[in-house]
């Protein structure tokens, strides 16, 4: 598996990020960019096309001149058996020509089941050999395509009794898949917490069975409940149970290279720079405690 030098603490890139974070900006070692949000979608010649919005791309590249960049895609739909989104890969290729990135990741999900059949929400994959056989070569190919680690991200979902084989649960599926793909894992601890609460399993016990050497990046977020389910919206501060999971896993994941606090662009003004900075300070404390116990140090951890 490709690994990478540790970066440290990151945040979701969005227009005006530096001003929005205030003092929190100085706590960031890197930013995580989703190429999709820099694009417009149009139908040209009967086909769907993505194009960069030049002003947004230019702003993102200016940020990249100040901080290292990792990529987190939204629309690849790597788990779609009928084919992933070639347009997304085309825009990622274009981005890569302009700006190298340290690693990239995407959601382990099916978003578009077929042309014109858009789920509108990432759907989970069945925990089967066939799903692993589909995704593993794709993940491996993405690692080779850009020469940097490719990470799969665990998603929140709400569907009971997913089809499974070999008695796999989510953890066993992630272990088997990352092993078959020889790729990394972007462990979204908030997503994992949501699934644990929604499906009633012990998150810490489950994490103790995860291949921690596969964890390259961690996502943190906070969301809202709907009809008794915790949902994956990045609108709030990180809940305490997720901090507890982070504090458990951070010193145990040997290849962990970054922790990103994800916040929706629309929620940033409501949270405000003081609350966002407080969250980032807490991430920084976890990262520094981890880094202090290891020989590798992040680029900005020395301050």
């Amino acid at each position, binding site marked *: 598996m490709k690994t990478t030098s540790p970066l440290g603490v990151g945040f979701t890139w969005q227009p005006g990020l530096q001003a929005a974070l205030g003092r929190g900006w100085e706590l960031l070692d890197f930013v995580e960019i989703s190429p*999709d949000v820099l*694009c*417009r*979608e*149009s*139908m040209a010649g009967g086909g769907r096309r993505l*194009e960069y*919005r*030049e*002003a947004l791309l230019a702003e993102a590249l200016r940020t990249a001149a100040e901080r290292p960049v990792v990529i987190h895609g*939204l*629309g690849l739909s790597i*788990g*779609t*058996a*009928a084919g992933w989104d070639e347009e997304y890969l085309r825009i990622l290729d274009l981005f890569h020509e302009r700006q190298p990135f340290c690693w990239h990741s995407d959601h382990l999900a*099916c*978003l*578009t*089941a*077929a042309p*014109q*059949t*858009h*789920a*509108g*929400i990432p*759907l989970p994959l*069945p925990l*089967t050999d*066939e*799903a692993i056989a*589909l995704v593993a070569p794709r993940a491996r190919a993405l690692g080779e395509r850009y020469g940097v680690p490719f990470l799969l991200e665990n998603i929140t*979902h*709400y*569907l*009971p*009794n997913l*089809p499974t084989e070999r008695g796999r649960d989510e953890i066993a599926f992630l272990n088997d898949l990352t092993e078959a793909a020889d790729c990394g894992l972007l462990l979204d601890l908030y997503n994992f917490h949501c699934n644990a609460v*929604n499906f009633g399993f012990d998150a810490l016990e489950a994490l103790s069975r995860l291949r921690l050497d596969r964890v390259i990046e961690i996502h943190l977020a906070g969301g809202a409940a*709907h*009809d*008794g*389910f915790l*949902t994956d919206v990045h609108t709030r501060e990180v809940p305490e149970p997720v901090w507890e999971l982070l504090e458990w896993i951070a010193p145990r994941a040997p290849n962990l290279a970054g922790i990103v606090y994800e916040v929706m662009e*629309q929620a940033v003004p409501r949270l405000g720079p003081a609350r966002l900075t407080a969250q980032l300070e807490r991430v920084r404390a976890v990262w520094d405690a981890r880094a202090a116990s290891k020989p590798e140090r992040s680029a900005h951890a020395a301050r």
Partner: protein
Amino acid sequence: MPLAELQFALAQLVSAHAASGSMAPDTLDELALSADERAWLDSLPGAPGFRVTCDIQRWWRETRLRETTRLTLVALGPQRAAELVQAFLNATPCTTLFFLPEARAFLRFAAETLEDANLSAIARFEHALLVAGDAALQLASDDPDFDETTEIVVFAAPPEELLDAVLHRQPLPAPSLEGFPVLISPRLPHLWQPI
């Protein structure tokens, strides 16, 4: 490709229930699904988590519309706006995660659905503004497509008076038989002007 069939069936199920709340019983008949897969799919509509999945899809779509079609939604007022958004979501399957295509589809739907001449014109106007604004941001002014986005929308009341009423949440002026044409173009400083 059994996985492809299962994913197609699941996406169809989510899409149908997120819209009208049900799916035609024979929709999945032709798919190569195992008995276990069919049983699982059959069980989903009764599961609270499936309902949440559908709700989230609608919620994201509503969020995109509330961010991008404010003029029309304000003109409609909260009650009618909510009803029209729900009618759109029921009638139109999700095809994108992007804001602008969703907004354009909704505004076309609004323009065709609304019987009030003022409201219909506002929906057409906002649609044209989105298109022209997108072109102004995205296209060079010598691009052959640049001027393709220019449009004339005919209002049923003086446009300044109508828009002022919308922005101040005042009753809209009565539609008149006289037409009040407005030019919308990426070449204009504010994208539009009465003509």
